[in-house]
């Protein structure tokens, strides 16, 4: 398990990064995170929804309804141009963070 304090600052970046290439829906993102991290990090539903909400308000994400094969309505999230620009900024910041923190703590 990883301390949620450490990861909290990266919630938005993680979500934007997973949505970088194609739109996705809530559980899909959550499942990807669990799978990629081998269940070492499970994002809570409330954390995920709060982030979606915040990112949408900031204009980094846009949501739309899609219909599933079973006829159910589902909310999809798609990254916007602003979102892509913000993600690039955050990725640069992450590289810098890794470099600096890596140099200091060993």
């Amino acid at each position: 398990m990883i301390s949620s304090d450490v990861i909290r600052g990266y919630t938005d970046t993680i979500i934007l990064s997973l949505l970088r290439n194609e739109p996705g829906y809530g559980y899909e993102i959550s499942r990807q995170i669990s799978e990629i991290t081998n269940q070492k990090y499970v994002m809570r539903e409330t954390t995920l929804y709060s982030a979606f909400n915040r990112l949408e308000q900031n204009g980094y994400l846009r949501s739309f309804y899609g219909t599933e094969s079973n006829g159910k309505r589902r909310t999809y999230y798609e990254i916007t141009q602003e979102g892509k620009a913000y993600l690039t900024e955050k990725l640069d910041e992450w590289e810098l963070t890794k470099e600096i923190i890596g140099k200091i703590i060993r």
Partner: protein
Amino acid sequence: MEAIKSYLENMFLHLPKTAEVMRAKEELAQMMEDKYSQLRSEGRTDNEAVGQVISEFGNLEELAETLGIPQEVRDLEADTKDIALSDAEVERYLQVSKETGKRIALGVGLILLGVANLIFLNALAERGYVAEKIAQAAGVGGLLLMIALAVYIFIMAGVKSGKYENLETTIVKIDPYLHDRIVQMKEDYRPDFARRIAGGVGLILLSVVALVTVAILEVGGEFAVMLLVCVLLLAIGSAVGLFISAGSEMEAYDKLLNEGDYTKQHKAENSFAGKISGPYWLLAVVIYLTWSFITNDWGSTWIVWPIAGVLFALISAVSSLITKR
């Protein structure tokens, strides 16, 4: 799956129903449902899947910040006064509520029986079947005895239900399964409740109409009127029983569900016919006896009873409407 829905319902129970909150709830439900289906398709049992989904859900406080409702949530979290009740405690509470209702109804019934007896004896004396002094002594003595008994019953009922007094002022927390069950019980009870209230009001009005008709038409003279007053009092007694038993059961559900008069805002201040009926009828007796002894006009002071009866039916009907929202 139902358990997950209940869990979410319960989480959102006390939040304002703004568009934003409703959307959050819908989205969370979707995510939880997806996760549940996924876990099930991986071979997890229903229990395991529900357990994992709920344990990984997170917390409301986190959501609140983005939904613009931090204050309400903080209120909820900070309410350490809230009481949690187990299944068994809820059963016991419902049981005690019904019993308390029956006891108060019995007490009121006894008082009215005492009054009916007094008026009946007076009517007999009027006709010359009994000496007037004896009729009054036996009637008033009997009434006082009934009042003493009723007061004893009221006090004992109060002691028994006093243990649950805090349910009136504090928010009750019960687990989602139980919450659903009580909602169902309340729904099932609703038609019965309406029937009892309507039956009680009908009973009182019918006997008042009979009494007034006889009094206006002057058939059978004062003796018939007095006898009908006795009938009216017995009808009121039965009606009070119906009102109180109906009301106290409904009230118990509302308290457990924090609904009706017992929502978070209203838990502090409320009233109901069941609570006032004891004092109400005692007051009516005081007015009746005082008036009767001062004027010594036992032939017309009985008018207190039809008036008190109609007034009580009115109060009960109105307050039950308010309880039902």
